């Protein structure tokens, strides 16, 4: 579904990622963990087309994404939930969700809206509320809901548990798993390594812009080096 080949990227001349190789298979939930500033977000930004790579290739669904803007990639089914959620703060919940389905037909919009409301009932309850008055956790749900509205085939999630209480974190990660179970591939960036690894099929560990470890989710969770890389313990 998604393959990064020796991807280097960064901001301006500043290079953050160094020759990253990474793969997400169809229907796979892959976790990407690493410390603050390791470059996880930068990797996601490059994949979704916000950031032009310095070198290397990003192949999505068999095609190189070079030169494609995020809105084009959304049409192909690659949807990114950014770290800052990028919600439309002045729009209502329902408007946010409907905007999520910008590329979809009217019929799809209605069915997906129902699905999202079923997944996050709180959103249905608050459908008329303006997004910027939402709490952090609610905003995070809305962001994921909005992404699902586009009917993604590959979902990039950047720290969806940020700002969530432990309980909500589990709800969230459960939801992510449910999404995966419907056949959507997921690339999940989480600082919350422990929990991310628990649900992931496979995982990569990143440090200072490079992938330093990879393997099955469970395997990595037991790895001493992962504990060290993540918590510094």
């Amino acid at each position: 579904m998604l393959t990064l080949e020796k991807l280097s990227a960064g901001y301006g001349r500043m290079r953050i990622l160094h020759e990253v190789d990474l793969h997400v298979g169809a229907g796979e939930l892959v976790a990407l963990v690493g410390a603050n500033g390791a470059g996880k977000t930068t990797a996601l930004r490059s994949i979704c087309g916000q950031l032009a790579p310095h070198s290397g290739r990003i192949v999505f669904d068999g095609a190189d994404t070079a030169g494609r803007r995020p809105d084009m990639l959304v049409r192909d089914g690659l949807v990114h939930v950014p770290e800052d959620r990028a919600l439309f703060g002045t729009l209502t919940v329902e408007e946010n969700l409907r905007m999520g389905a910008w590329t979809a037909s009217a019929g799809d919009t209605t069915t997906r809206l129902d699905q999202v409301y079923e997944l996050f009932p709180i959103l249905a309850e608050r459908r008329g509320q303006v997004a910027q008055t939402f709490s952090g956790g609610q905003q995070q749900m809305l962001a994921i809901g909005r992404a699902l509205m586009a009917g993604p085939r590959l979902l990039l999630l950047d720290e969806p548990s940020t700002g969530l209480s432990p309980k909500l974190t589990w709800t969230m990660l459960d939801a992510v798993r449910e999404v995966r179970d419907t056949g959507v591939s997921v690339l999940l960036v989480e600082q919350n390594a422990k929990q991310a690894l628990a649900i992931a099929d496979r995982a990569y560990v990143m440090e200072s812009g490079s992938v330093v470890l990879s393997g099955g989710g469970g395997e990595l969770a037991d790895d001493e080096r992962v504990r060290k890389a993540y918590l510094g313990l």
Partner: protein
Amino acid sequence: MTDTAVESRPPTRPAGPAAPPLRPQNRQFAVLAVLVLLAVPLPLILPPAQGAVAVRILIFLIMAVGWNIMSGFGGMFSFGHAAYFGLGAYTSAYLLVEHGVSPWVGMAAGMVVAAAVAMVIGYFSFRYDLKGAYFALATFAFAEMLRLITTSSDAVNGAVGYQVPLIQGSSVGQLQFPAGSPAYFWIALVLAGGAVALSILFRHSAAGRYVVAIRDDELAAASVGAPVMRHKLLTVALSGAITAVAGAFYTQYYLFIDPQLAFGSSVSIEAIVTAVIGGIGTIWGPVVGAVIVGSLSDVTATLLATPPEFLSFLQGRSGLDVILYAVMLILIVRLMPKGIFGTLAEKVAERRRR
């Protein structure tokens, strides 16, 4: 489980460039001196009509230097510099016509008044944290208020404005010379040179460095001890004072001032256009801009008044010169988004780096 060795970042430490001179202003002063010296014989060479254009260029230059200090170095985009220009013009005209005060004293008084008003406007705008387009519109509103108030205020002759009385012969003290006298150009040259010198001095002073840092990042500057409000006020005061010089000299050269000429929005626009075309936030941008903008309208007018053969169909079509001017304006901005000097300087710097 795959395992990759921990890679460290490749060492990308180039040998740094050499230290810049300790006093970069020295070179700029040298360039300024050369420019001034080159300009001195101009009024003797140029035909009188072009001599007048040259003086106009110098007035634009002073205005643009003033604007650039506040909006270029300081990043506070003023759309109301007519206020300071007008205060300079009116203060000197008022003192001269109503009280017979020498225009030189009037000029100094105008600088003080303009600086004070700039600080008041600035204080309120900064206090209420107006930024970007809002700050620009606020400065515009103040300039317009001054225009409207002078227009209806009998104390300064209302809409009629002031006409500077003609004297016989020439007098440096009265700042008046026969028509076409090179003295006007020379005095303007000294004033403009002084303005540029001030802007060089300011840019490299401790205050100037603070101001640039505040423009780049206000909070970061404050966090290392830059007194923000004080330096912003200092900047607008200096900017206002320099612009007032242009206003006072304008009055003495053109011998006539009215509210529209002094405080009209076209004055503010001229200051902006000149500085932006030249290169905002640079020492030489306003200089380059003044030469280009100041002569642009003359060139287009001359071209259209007596067009070359293949353009003869243009002769006498009104509005065409302004259209030409507008097209050039848009082209320059589109092609050189950092102004003529700014863009060229960047290109040179880039080439040097390679």
